[in-house]
């Protein structure tokens, strides 16, 4: 049973689907409960809204080569999705904020899929710097997020 902290009125009102959240206490466990609105909850079970959410979260950093393929991969691989904004931010910082980045899903044999981060360097990046950058990136990723690292790769689209 949830004992809400809202003050009650004499006539019960119809819930708003937009309003979250009563905050209350679950009497049986003593834990504090927070509730999201029904309308916000739809992101968890609507395919289209999940796709839209992923695009919105990432479009500051990345373009999608084949929108639906990459987005659906990220919906099923939440751990990858969670670290991508940080990766995008770091790449833009290291490679220049104007360097376009795109995501490309490569389906390999036996159902294995790899998400490529394509760096569109516009001929401004030399291979030595790129190789150093790439090695350092994967060293860090395998230390911090090994499960994510094995599903990622990076590629430079044009370098000097």
């Amino acid at each position, binding site marked *: 049973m949830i004992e809400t902290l809202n003050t009650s009125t004499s006539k019960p009102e119809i819930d708003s*689907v937009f309003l979250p959240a009563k905050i209350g206490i679950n009497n049986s466990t003593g834990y504090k409960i927070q*509730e999201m*609105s029904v*309308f*916000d909850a739809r992101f968890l079970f609507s395919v*289209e809204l999940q796709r839209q959410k992923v695009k919105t979260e990432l479009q500051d950093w990345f373009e999608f080569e084949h929108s639906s393929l990459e987005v659906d991969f990220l919906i099923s691989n939440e751990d990858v999705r969670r670290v991508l904004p940080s990766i995008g931010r770091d790449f833009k910082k290291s490679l220049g904020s104007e360097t376009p980045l795109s995501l490309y899903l490569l389906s390999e044999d036996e159902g294995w899929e790899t998400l490529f981060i394509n760096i569109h360097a516009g001929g401004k990046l030399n291979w030595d710097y790129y190789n150093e950058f790439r090695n350092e990136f994967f060293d860090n990723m395998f230390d911090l997020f090994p499960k994510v690292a094995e599903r990622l790769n990076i590629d430079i689209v044009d370098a000097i």
Partner: protein
Amino acid sequence: MTKTKKYKKPPLTEAVFELFYRTDNWTPATPGQFYSQVKEKYPVISQSSGGFGVSFAANGIQIGPGNNNITRYSSENSQSIIQITNNLLTVNKLPMYEGWESYKGMIIDAVSAFVQVMDVKTISRIGLRTINKIDIQAHSYENFKKYFNVYPNIGSGLRKNGINSIQLNYQTLEVEETEEVLAVNLSTLRKEEKYNAPTLFEIYYTRMKEIETKGIDDWLEIAHQQLHVAFESILTNECKQNFDND
């Protein structure tokens, strides 16, 4: 069955039916038992976590102790989907949408299959949602008004430098006794593939009062009619003309 206008290129990107229920006999084996009922039409099964500490409830999502896994059953082409948790069943249809009769049949079949394996004690809430994406060509106040009959009133003095994003929600009470409401969401989105100025247009009809399984068929017709009327009323004729152009 209600006659509704069919467009050549409808903007529908997803239809979602949702049913919140209570039961005492959910077990970890239930998703597998349900799979045996639906696997001919929905052979692809997958499971994802609703998130640690996230549990579904008829009045929203609770963040706290407890957990819900979502089991998803998809058709081969991934256009038709059923999802279940220990208190929620959804039936999702992605394009190609083959019309209301076909989608309603999917819902009724899914509910029938579900009650075969699950002793549903109470249906505490039921809802039908359509999600449309409409290209309004440019994100401006003027274009928003050109496409939608519902818009915020923003005086010219407040939009001297232009309006580039609008988020609008409202809810109307349709039937007080059964706590049925119609909720609408309009949200401009960033430019994306095939859309210059996409705008999400969601219409949601829900009944928050308990309903029996046998009442679902009739309720679906009411909900569909409500969604249809809202769709036709909220969009301007200029907007709707685009759905019939080749």
